[in-house]
């Protein structure tokens, strides 16, 4: 089982693995050591999920185009 560092996970990856961890723990056939490790990983995944949820911040920008129609940058958009 290749484990990606939790800090690099997207919300979806973290949530999926958290669900998996919970399911495995709930099935109850994991060895004790493994269940402790799973619990710790689950706690980490949960923190990652919550962090990603807290990061919810609206930021709206509009692309600016040069004369030939290629994107040259962005300008913030407000009051929409």
């Amino acid at each position: 089982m290749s484990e990606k560092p939790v800090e690099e996970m997207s919300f979806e990856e973290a949530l999926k693995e958290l669900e998996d961890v919970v399911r495995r723990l709930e099935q109850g056939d994991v060895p004790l050591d493994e269940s402790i490790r799973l619990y710790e990983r689950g706690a980490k995944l949960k923190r990652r999920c919550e962090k990603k949820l807290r990061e919810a911040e609206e930021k709206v920008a509009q692309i600016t185009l040069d004369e030939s129609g290629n994107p040259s940058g962005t300008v913030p958009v407000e009051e929409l």
Partner: protein
Amino acid sequence: MADIFEPEIPGENAPEFTVSEISGAVKRLIEGEFAHVRVRGEIGRVSRPRSGHVYLDLKDERAVLSGVIWRGVAARLQVQPEEGMEVIATGRLTTFPGQSKYQIVIESLSPAGIGALMAMLERRRKALAAEGLFAAERKRPLPFLPEVIGVVTSPSGAVIRDILHRLRDRFPRHVVIWPVAVQGERCAPEVARAVRGFNALAPDGPIPRPDVIIVARGGGSIEDLWGFNEEEVVRAVAESAIPVISAVGHETDTTLVDHAADVRAPTPTAAAEMAVPVRLELLATVEDLSGRLGRAAATALERRRQRVADLGRLLPRPESLVQSWRQTLDHLDQRLPTALRALARERRLRYTRVAAPFSARVLAVSLARHQERLGDLAGRLSPAMARRLADARREAARTSAGLRPRTVAATVLRARRDLDALSQRLATVAEARQARLRDRLEALERMRQTLGYKETLRRGYAVVRAGEEVVTRARDARRHAGLEIEFHDGKVPVRVAAEEKAPPAAPRRGRPGGGGGDGQGSLF
């Protein structure tokens, strides 16, 4: 050949035109007469050379009219000409004198009625579908929670506002708007360019590359939406590596871009809902999972604790392991003293048997015999010595005549010294031997006393004697007139009442068996 002439034909005085003159006349006439016409027909062959001009044929059942759309006009057309399309072309007729041709220069082109437009759309859809651009297996899943959302739409208007509002409600995100014209001839190329442009952005460049693209436009007529039916838009969306949500027009309007998109949303608001999950729901989900995680871990521990306890109960008690051994030990412990006593009894018995020959009386007899002999030898010693002395003296007397007194005297002296020494040794030896025998006798006597019958007497037994004979039977007793009964503390003479034949009682002796070394072995 030189003599062949064309004869002048009389009466033929109509003016002569040069080719150029007549071509020019025709041109003036046609262009004057048909400076603005609308022509309905079906588009035949269409060619698009590099110049950017478009050449096509308009035709019906019996005739064909060539047409050209200059580059500038072609770029502005809302509906691009396609073979088979029923159109109404507006423009002017012109001639092309160099080739004796005439043609229509098309200023604008529109489908000949909705039916024709729909028929054309259907044909295009089929063609693109045949290419596989709309195939289900091409569809990419939308990201669960995109970090950046690209929106291709008009930067002003209700559409972008609806999308932003809904995103704000559900899960505020980073939104990048790529502004495009959403109708008119610029629509299709700009939308296509925007979709390709988002895909071309570097993942970590200055402009964030979206994780999902929404192509959106509000409702409108089929002509208004026509740009989203254009092939270049359809291809750009189909080729997009970034998943695309299309939301063009109202729910009932379907454009070809909807087929090419990965997901079709009925409205721009719905597109925003598809793009992001609801943050509060996710928080609740994570909270729920977190709770389950804790409970599951606690349950896992509790179940094991329970199991340990269960197994612990199944273990035998330590006491029960040693109980039977303890019982055995108790049993042996009880038997031990009895066994020891029995062993001691048995050993004592054997000892008694072995010790019997060494009883005091046997030893006393042996001692008496040795004493007797010693006495005898001692008795004989003095006469023998005297005799010997006499013999020696006689011998001395006999020889002394021939001897010198001094020699004799020396000899006598020496012999006397020898005699003295011998006598001395004799006495010593005899004394030592006697002492040794006495010690032994004393020891034996002590043993005899402890083993002897005297101790028995203390327990109430008595010894009956007739004279020196021990009487052990009543029959023997009757033969005697008097008997002597020995108790532990003394003797009592008694008379036998019944019979008369016994000799008179003869109480004798002091204490039979008592005393050491005076030779009273006759009792036994």
